[in-house]
């Protein structure tokens, strides 16, 4: 593996990493395309390579000589570089998407790696997992019988051994048939033999070296990799089938694998019709596209919000592989019960903690691999409920990384405990601890007599204000709010309860009210590496007005929300909210200003969720690593995110 990484270290990574521009290198782009065809799974595609990295493989080998800095870009594949290069071109989000597909970065090496992953997997035969299923569900049926006394079991679901096995067996077979057919057609006898030999050699090598492939063998694998590349893919697919069958979904419900496969990529372009159709086919959440969409934002997902929730609710008991905690969080995202970057992230992580707690490795499965697949499927479910925020993306990457790096020697319970404490630590250190540090830094900036302006309801700012109040600082708060969410009202309520004197206004009055403001405190959904602050829609407006009035703008953002992406506008990557939210007043059906116009073909609603504030308008970013100017964000991303992955 290392030997294949080398070329990447040699070739200037800054050029290679820019996702969409790989076409400048014809050979790699073709492989890339090929791989894209076989792995349209956004989430899982990133996971298997990660999980195949054996822990020993990650330690520095003498050949590699990666200086620590490079290593950071290794685990975090050169985001900064990618971002820097692609900043000139508008769809910078693309570079991100492609990066996610190929976390190892070396495109030529990937087939070989795949083959390695595949024979490891294919050593567990597909059929052998079947009796396990039968036994499993049998056991489930048995164990669920209530301890009795008063209860008479009149009917037991004796589906299991014969029937279940047959059913799932058939499923697997049919899938297998589909997958294995092209294999037979494509490979000749000689080719098959070559594959077999290559696999055998690699297997022997793997056995000999405990996962660490010596350069010689890996080279031999690499040499056959051209041939291996093709058949290896079907076999990985086949294996995925067995994974899915192992989790055993009831007929009808979309399987975990399917969900994983066809969930929309986080950065899918929604004006690409064929992809949308594909993604929709097996989505858990029924997604009806909204009809009147604003042309400029067609690449973003916009669904009829009315139908999603009831539809998902009715499926409550049918989503078998879904963990209840994840399901609950998904519902809460969908219904808007949880919003705000930190809260969403915490809720998701807590759900994952539950998942880990209730997890047990299926027979003949690897914990690292299976758990990563599970988490991926949960994540794609959550994406269907609401697009992920950048902070959540970082948190998910952290969790997956921890899973991938679990030493194989750990027992299941140890591994679970380790994971749970890792997640716990992430929440405590990276979110809550970070907020505490931010509060400490920011409070020094509040002086007596200040008039502080804040917009929306950022958690960090709220904590700052409350803390400053506890320190008996005398200041006044201006809470600026906007329709339709009116989050500021909630903040206002809490501040007033603590006895802070507040003024409440809407964003329309911002230019008037800015005269008296001495400092502006803003929250952020994410801070990008060019210093752009990606935040609740309206933030940019507030920051611009403030800088026009020469009022310092302080952005409070935890470092786990930083991202090395570069974004110049808020168009290419954004989120569209419920269009009805702006046309109607919730809970008051009698107020309906646009009555009769909502179905007019000439009327389109745009409810943007985020905007991007250019770094020019920002005086200071307060983060857990101190107060930095926006130009220093790339440094934090580069220097601390590797640590953040390791925690």
């Amino acid at each position, binding site marked *: 593996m290392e030997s294949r990484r080398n070329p990447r270290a040699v070739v200037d990574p800054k050029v290679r990493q820019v996702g969409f521009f790989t076409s400048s290198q014809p050979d790699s782009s073709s492989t890339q395309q090929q791989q894209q065809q076989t792995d349209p799974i956004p989430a899982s595609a990133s996971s298997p390579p990660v999980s195949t990295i054996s822990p020993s493989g990650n330690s520095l080998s003498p050949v590699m000589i990666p200086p620590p800095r490079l290593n950071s870009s290794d685990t975090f594949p050169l985001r900064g570089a990618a971002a820097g290069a692609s900043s000139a071109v508008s769809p910078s989000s693309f570079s991100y998407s492609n990066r996610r597909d190929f976390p190892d970065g070396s495109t030529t090496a990937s087939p070989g790696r795949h083959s390695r992953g595949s024979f490891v997997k294919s050593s567990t035969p597909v059929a052998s997992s079947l009796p396990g299923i039968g036994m499993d569900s049998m056991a489930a*049926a048995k164990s*669920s*019988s*209530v*301890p009795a*006394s*008063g*209860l*008479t*079991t*009149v*009917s*037991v*679901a*004796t*589906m299991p051994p014969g*029937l279940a096995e047959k059913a799932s067996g058939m499923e697997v077979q049919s899938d297998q048939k589909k997958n294995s057919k092209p294999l037979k057609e494509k490979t000749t006898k000689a080719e098959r033999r070559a594959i077999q030999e290559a696999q055998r050699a690699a297997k022997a090598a793997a056995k000999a070296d405990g996962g660490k492939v010596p350069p010689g063998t890996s080279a031999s694998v690499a040499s056959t990799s051209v041939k291996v590349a093709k058949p290896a893919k079907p076999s990985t697919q086949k294996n995925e089938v067995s994974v899915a069958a192992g989790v055993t979904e*009831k007929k009808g*419900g979309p399987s975990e694998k399917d969900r994983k496969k066809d969930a929309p990529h986080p950065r899918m372009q929604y004006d690409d019709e064929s992809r949308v159709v594909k993604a929709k086919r097996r989505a858990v959440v029924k997604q009806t596209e909204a009809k009147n969409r604003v042309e400029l934002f067609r690449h973003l997902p916009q669904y009829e919000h009315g139908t999603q929730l*009831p539809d*998902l*609710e*009715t*499926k*409550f*008991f*049918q989503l*078998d592989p879904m963990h*209840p905690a994840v*399901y*609950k969080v998904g*519902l*809460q995202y969908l*219904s*808007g*019960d*949880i*919003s*705000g970057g*930190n*809260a*969403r992230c*915490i*809720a998701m992580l807590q759900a994952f903690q539950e998942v880990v707690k209730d997890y047990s490795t299926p027979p003949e499965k690897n914990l690292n691999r299976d758990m990563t697949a599970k988490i991926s499927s949960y994540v794609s479910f959550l994406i269907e409920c609401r697009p992920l925020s950048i902070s959540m993306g970082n948190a998910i990457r952290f969790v997956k990384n921890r899973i991938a790096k679990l030493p194989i020697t750990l027992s299941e319970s140890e591994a679970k405990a380790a994971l749970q404490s890792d997640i716990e630590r992430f*929440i*405590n250190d990276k*979110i*809550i*601890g970070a*907020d505490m540090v931010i509060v400490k830094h920011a409070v020094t900036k509040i002086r007596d007599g200040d008039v502080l302006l804040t917009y929306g*309801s950022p*958690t960090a700012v*709220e*904590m700052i204000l409350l803390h400053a109040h506890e320190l008996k600082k005398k200041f006044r708060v201006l809470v600026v709010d906007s329709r339709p969410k009116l989050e500021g009202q*909630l903040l206002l309520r*809490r501040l007033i*309860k603590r006895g802070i004197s507040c003024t409440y206004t809407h964003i329309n009055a911002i230019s008037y009210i800015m005269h008296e403001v001495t400092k502006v405190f803003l929250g952020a959904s994410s801070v990008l590496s060019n210093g752009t602050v990606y935040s609740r829609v309206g933030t940019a407006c507030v920051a611009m007005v403030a800088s026009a009035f020469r009022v310092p703008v302080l952005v409070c953002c935890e470092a786990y929300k930083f991202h090395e992406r570069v974004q110049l506008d808020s168009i290419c990557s954004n989120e569209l909210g419920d269009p009805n939210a702006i046309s109607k007043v*919730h*809970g*008051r059906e009698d107020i309906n200003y646009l009555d009769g116009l909502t179905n007019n073909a000439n009327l389109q609603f745009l409810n943007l969720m985020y905007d991007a504030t250019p770094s020019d308008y920002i005086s200071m970013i307060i983060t857990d690593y101190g107060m930095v100017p926006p130009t220093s964000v790339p440094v934090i991303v580069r220097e601390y995110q590797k640590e953040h992955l390791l925690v």
Partner: protein
Amino acid sequence: MDFQVVILAGGFSSNLVPLVSKEVPKALLPVANRPVLSYVLDLLESNNLKDLIVVVEGEDAALKVGGWISAACVDRLHVEVAAVAENVGTAGALRAIAHHLTAKDILIVSGDIVSDIPPGAVAATHRRHDAAVTVMLCAQPVSGPSESGGSSGKDKTKKPACEDIVGLDSWKQFLLYIAKGTEIKKDTRVKKSILCAAGKMELRSDLMDSHIYAFKRSVLQEVLDQKPAFRSLKQDVLPYLVRTQLRSDVSSDQNNVEEIGNGKDNMQNNEVVLSQILSNASLPSFHQVYESGLDSRKTHKCCVYIADESKFFVRLNSIQAFMDVNRDVIGDANHLSGYSFSAHHNIVHPSAELGSKTTVGPHCMLGEGSQVGDKCSVKRSVIGRHCRIGSNVKIVNSVVMDHATIGDGCSIQGSVICSNAQLQERVTLRDCQVEAGYIVCAGGEHKGETFARK
């Protein structure tokens, strides 16, 4: 999903005499020739709920129901039947099986429901709000056959204008008030604190309680333990929980408190911040607002799920409802019956024998092995298995159960003939119920009567 399902199948409902008897408990009353319980089981099975507890009042009834379930659902469902004493009420029945309930939440379904509303929706709403209880409400069904004015007189007496009166908050998420329509005479009491906290209450009489509830197990068990006098879920437990939602006696969050208590000081601080962030993030329900206003008050949430109006829902709790269900299941809501209908919108079993010049109209069902004589006419009726029907018989809007015998020249309208009953020649029945095994003498003309042995 950590839900346990309890089906309250009842015993011998006094409302349904003479249709129910020692042989036929309420759960086994045939609706389109299938026991009514099978509709519930099918509904749950289609929602992938396969571990069920069926609670039946009375040992005999439990044996019967258990026997039927084991015959019908073997290999498909994992059903356990619990027999409880008669007349303990729904709350009493749950009390009796309380020690079998282990899951986090309990889904309680009445056994006499014919519906296509997915129960998952209730469960999902329940989970989303972390509620103590979630009630499914649905639109009141239109009762009585609309075509024939025959039973309209009966309608008025049997069905009150509104069955339930419910109070909802302005988001239609929480239940603020519930009472049976028949209980309210002139005035009623509404908790002032609830009204103040919610700000606005919408009173609806067009919704009715569908007897599908999701309870938090800890809450349910606590209420059942604390209030031994409660007999009925709907009339005692639910109103109690709704009434006390702002000064909750039930400790739904006991785990939380313990967890915080155990942690170290720093950890505890973190936990507090954590819960604060989470609660600040969401729009607070009026419960939280109220809680924060007055310290140390605990609240619990009573949520509602309002079923879509297009969904079908009927409870079989009266004779009229029995007629309605039979009519609808082979008529408008025929997707529930599980049969495939012929081109004439009826089901005639291939083994049924029809005489010459006999017509079976649409929305009819003729069971296996039944014989119908010459010149008969069957309209909008369900005829069970192995019935013998003579010549010149007219059956309209009626239900004839298995093994009934109907003599020549009878005319039956809007009536129920139970199994093994016998009608001799030229009997004219209108809006009558004939008990199982009863023999109606020849030539009688009856209207609105109930035939039962003393």
